């Protein structure tokens, strides 16, 4: 390290930059002690080890026992760095560990440690069901030796299976399943229906993905509402003929679309010459607005795919089908109508929960990922988590080449094919990461035309993901994958069987090609990280075209009309280099802003949800509702047995509580939508939101009481209480969209913009 670098790292540390705040030295000092216990533990038989495992309490002992158990059960002796990672997790940090360093095993030792230190049960939160099941079954022998029980939950699990799994010491579950289980537990009418125990400790796998990316999309529990009419198909037909630019305009940020005067006229004519903006036509206006959104902003094979007669959403960060995710507010139906499918039932929000609020329910949180430092500031701001950078076991020797930049998309794709062909000729395995489904299919076709066989992995066949990715390192393999392929799945050189591994090493290992920069450097790094695991050789290179959406959207005006390029069409222009970095930073900023706003506006809702949950708990576990009814309806209930009143009161009060909460959420969504307009009156939108949300909530409790009394008054309780199944249906929708806090800028911004316009004559 040079002097200047040393100074720089000192400064970073002084400024408390993420990744510098956790000192690993004290933990490293424990490692010799761990090693010293190794022989002693190795001499024990399995039963004795299990017994010993039940006594461990200190870091040293936990690590030593954990290491021995892993060695016996998996024939893998955890490296020192894995133990360091486990200890950081025990200390409640986010451990940054490079790809292939064995995070799963690290989490296992940490989970054991947390239980031993009295912080059980432990939930290991994963990004998807596949990883939850795989990790749990893979690590089960280790847990057995450690004397712990382990379970896993997937979407297919029944309530009983869930309850059983959550009752274990360690439970592997995807974060959305865990969140939805929590939400459903909030709607039970009988305490025995609960599946989740008190939340204690969470170990978050792929922490950046779950804590940052997922945190932008709140989980929504929805119940179906019978809809009387079907305006979506009619609206879809009307909107189908409209043309972009002439009839409607798409916002620069690609997040909004609006009719032009001409478009409005066309729609009104098609609807029989009405005035859409009259009060009585609001429903039709909503329908065409939503239909336009579906047509103009959501693209097939980019934002969603159509499979088996249904529309399935693609997770924008992972490029895979987002399980049980739906668009809200009729948008899902509009997309279905656009694709000529039957519209499915609409959901009404019954309850919402942000990932952040869910995570906050745990008393201890820790996590691990390969890319934590990039989001270190956010992890600190939103979760109070610090990042511990764990050094790799063997240094990374992957060669990251400079980006190749082209003027057009066609040139870029030609160059990618040429680069793949060159590598493939030597039979070097290649993994190509593309940005969307369409591009992956285009590239696969081009490769086929060039005589290169390839395997395509995208949202359309993501169930085979693990097996495809596992073979991506085989000699001569070419794999085209959307987004970051296979988080959590190892790409071994030579394929899963590992044959020809040496040949692949000689060829330079896996070559990762990025077909375009992602919305954040972090995702780029994740893709690069697929190559060069555990000191393997490997290489990576990104190809960028000036027509990529990232660039046109965020840096379009910065690109010079004729950038400098060499004879082969490679752009070598400092301005372009800067513009690409800039575009990526803008995209990161936008995503951060969405996360921030989702969070800022959810704080008050979360508090209310908590207050309501306590109220609900009391209704559920005590007879407060019955007592209240006996007081209010003394005459009517005089002859009714107490148990019946209690039961009826509880059921009816819970029903109204849930209903009113759903209505409250709908009202807040309404307020949230237009609250940015308040900034025009120099009011702070967030304060205004609170000003609306809090009084509305204050009315809720008396309202529940009133409605309960009213309902019970009309009930006939002479034959006991007949529960009137108010069925609350399974979850569906999740979607967020950006409404910037104050799109107009501060007053000074506006003043200066106006002056600027006048000066520059624009």
């Amino acid at each position: 390290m040079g002097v200047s670098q040393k100074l720089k790292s000192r400064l970073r540390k002084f400024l408390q930059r993420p990744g510098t705040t956790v000192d690993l030295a004290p933990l490293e000092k424990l490692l010799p002690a761990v090693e010293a216990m190794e022989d002693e533990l190795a001499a024990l038989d399995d039963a004795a080890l299990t017994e010993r495992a039940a006594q461990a309490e200190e870091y040293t002992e936990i690590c030593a026992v954990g290491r021995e158990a892993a060695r016996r059960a998996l024939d893998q002796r955890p490296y020192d760095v894995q133990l360091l990672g486990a200890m950081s997790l025990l200390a409640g940090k986010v451990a940054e560990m490079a790809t292939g360093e064995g995070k799963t095993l690290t989490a296992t030792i940490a989970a054991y440690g947390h239980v031993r230190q009295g912080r059980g049960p432990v939930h290991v939160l994963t990004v998807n069901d596949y990883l939850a099941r795989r990790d749990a079954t893979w690590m089960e022998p280790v847990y057995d030796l450690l004397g712990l029980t382990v379970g896993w939950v997937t979407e297919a699990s029944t309530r009983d299976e869930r309850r059983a799994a959550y009752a274990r010491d360690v439970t592997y579950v995807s974060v959305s399943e865990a969140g939805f289980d929590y939400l459903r537990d909030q709607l039970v009418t009988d305490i025995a229906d609960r599946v989740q125990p008190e939340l204690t400790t969470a170990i978050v796998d792929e922490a950046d993905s779950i804590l940052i990316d997922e945190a932008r999309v709140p989980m929504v529990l929805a119940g179906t509402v019978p809809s009387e009419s079907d305006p979506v198909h009619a609206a879809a037909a009307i909107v189908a003929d409209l043309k972009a630019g002439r009839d409607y305009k798409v916002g620069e940020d690609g997040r909004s679309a609006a009719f032009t005067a001409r478009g409005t006229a066309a729609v009104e004519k098609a609807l029989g010459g009405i005035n859409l903006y009259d009060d009585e036509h609001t429903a039709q206006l909503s329908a065409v607005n939503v239909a336009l959104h579906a047509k103009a902003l959501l693209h097939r094979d980019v934002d969603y795919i159509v499979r088996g007669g249904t529309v399935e959403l693609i997770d924008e960060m992972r490029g895979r089908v987002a399980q049980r995710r739906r668009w809200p507010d009729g948008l899902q139906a509009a997309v279905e109508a656009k694709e000529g499918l039957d519209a499915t039932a609409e959901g009404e929000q019954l309850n919402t929960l942000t990932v952040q609020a869910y995570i906050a329910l745990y008393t201890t949180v820790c996590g691990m990922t390969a890319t934590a430092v990039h989001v270190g500031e956010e992890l600190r701001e939103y979760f109070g988590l610090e990042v511990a950078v764990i050094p790799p076991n063997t240094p990374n020797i992957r060669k990251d080449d400079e980006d190749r930049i082209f003027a057009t998309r066609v040139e870029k794709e030609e160059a990618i094919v040429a680069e793949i062909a060159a590598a493939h000729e030597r039979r070097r395995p290649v993994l190509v990461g593309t940005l969307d489904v369409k591009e992956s299919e285009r590239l696969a076709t081009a490769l086929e035309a060039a005589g290169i066989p390839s395997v395509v992995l995208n949202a359309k066949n993501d169930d085979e993901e693990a097996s495809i990715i596992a073979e991506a390192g085989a000699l001569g393999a070419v794999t085209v994958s959307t987004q970051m392929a296979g988080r959590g799945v190892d790409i071994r050189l030579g394929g899963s069987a590992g044959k020809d591994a040496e040949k692949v090493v000689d060829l330079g290992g896996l070559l990762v090609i990025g077909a375009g920069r992602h919305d954040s450097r972090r995702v780029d790094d994740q893709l690069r990280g697929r190559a060069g695991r555990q000191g393997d050789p490997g290489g990576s290179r990104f190809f960028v075209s000036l027509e990529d959406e990232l660039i046109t959207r965020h840096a379009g005006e910065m690109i010079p009309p004729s950038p400098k390029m060499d004879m082969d069409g490679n752009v070598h222009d400092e301005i372009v280099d800067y513009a690409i970095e800039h575009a990526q930073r803008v995209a990161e900023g936008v995503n951060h802003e969405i996360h921030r706003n989702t969070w800022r506006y959810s704080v008050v809702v979360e508090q209310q949800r908590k207050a309501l949950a306590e109220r609900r708990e009391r209704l559920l576990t005590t007879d407060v509702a019955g007592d209240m009814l006996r007081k209010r309806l003394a005459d009517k209930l005089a002859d009714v047995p107490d148990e019946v009143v209690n039961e009826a009161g509880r059921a009816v009060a819970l029903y109204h509580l849930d209903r009113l909460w759903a209505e409250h959420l709908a009202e807040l969504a309404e307020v949230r939508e237009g609250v940015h307009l308040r900034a025009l009156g120099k009011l702070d939108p967030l304060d205004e939101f609170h000003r609306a949300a809090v009084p509305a909530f204050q009315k809720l409790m008396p309202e529940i009481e009133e409605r309960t009394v009213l309902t019970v008054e009309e009930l006939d309780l002479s034959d006991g209480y007949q529960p009137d199944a108010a069925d609350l249906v399974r979850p569906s929708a999740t979607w967020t969209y950006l409404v910037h806090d104050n799109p107009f800028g501060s007053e000074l911004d506006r003043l200066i913009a106006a002056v600027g316009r006048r000066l520059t004559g624009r």
Partner: protein
Amino acid sequence: MLSAFTSAFKTPDLRKKILFTVFIIGVYRLGATLPSPGVSYTNVQNCIKATETGDVGGVVTLLNLFSGGALLSLSVFALGIMPYITASIILQLLTVVIPRLEQLRKEGQSGQAKITQYTRYLTLGLAVLQSSAFVALARSGQLFSGLCPQDNPQFTIIPENTGLPYWLTLTVLVLTMTAGTGVVMWLGELITDRGVGNGMSVLIFTSIAARLPSEGWSIKQSRGWGVFSAILVLVLVIITLVVFIEQAQRRIPVQYAKRMIGRRTYGGTSTYIPLKVNQSGVVPVIFASSLLYLPQLYLQFFNPNELNGYQQWIQNNLAKPSSWIYILTYFLLIIFFTYFYVSITFNPTEVADNMKKYGGFVPGIRPGKPTADYLDFILSRITLPGSFYLGLVSVLPNFFFIWLANEQYVNFPFGGVAVLIMVGVGLETVKQIESQLMQRNYEGFLR
């Protein structure tokens, strides 16, 4: 409001925030009264006393007002918050000119952090310039408009006989005031981050409020209790009026036709554009009074005893706050600037476009141009009473002058501005406290 404060004090973390803010304000006031090294405290006080009855230039008065009297006494925080505000405005202006800055702004938080950093550097640069300028002004005696001649040892603000080389004294002085500015900037940011309210606004509020007791006392000293209490009552009436009108707004309902389900009509509209009666705030008053300072500035180039007829007229009318012509001009200028400022900062077309973009509309009115026209119409109607109100509040102090028939209150020409700023900041801060209070007050529900 009082109950809001008492319950705010019952909420531990809010209490902590308020106490923290009070503490920072204390530090700020301490620095504002602490004389800088090299400045003779007694001589500065002599100068201030000497000029109390005289006429000090308008811009210095304004700056002095914003620094809470720290400027004229050349204290450690003499420059107050002004360099930071100036730097922010300059950087904002530069974003129009320099594309790099515009790009940084778009990068969101990380870019904004860089711009903030630039603002801080620029603040320090400006602080060096301004402190040097004020030290120079102080040495030449111009800081007090020549009313305390520096060759008189009783008035020498920065004496030479301190035992240190004179250049060193001056350098230390400049450095102290620059460092003071840095500290003030930090204090402001601390309030924004960990206290209540916007740090900059709170500090300006503090500065202005700090002057009130001494101003009031000097009226009592010269005119006695009767006039003093009359003025007190009048000021209270004005504050009430300002509080009332500052909160007045016209709500234009807006609907977002995007939800297909879950739409219900809730009691009243929850989505609206609030158009304030005083949409422009205090800025038009500052514009108008700055413009009206020009005639005064013009007269300073001439010997007051040898003015020609036309200059004489200016002297007696445009430069004399108690003259009817002055008051009328001031009033009309404020009305003009109110319309001007509102037209610049509230662009109905832009607002209409934004609403349209996200599917919003005013019920019964088509989006796009008709909406913009409608907003424009309402806005120009509501701005009329708003501008009259601004003008009235601003010229009220001038009637004091006539009534008191005492020119000494020329020293306080920004009476209207002061009240407007103080009420504005006060309302903003109380609203923020209230909102935070609401968020935390759920005890009532947990029965």
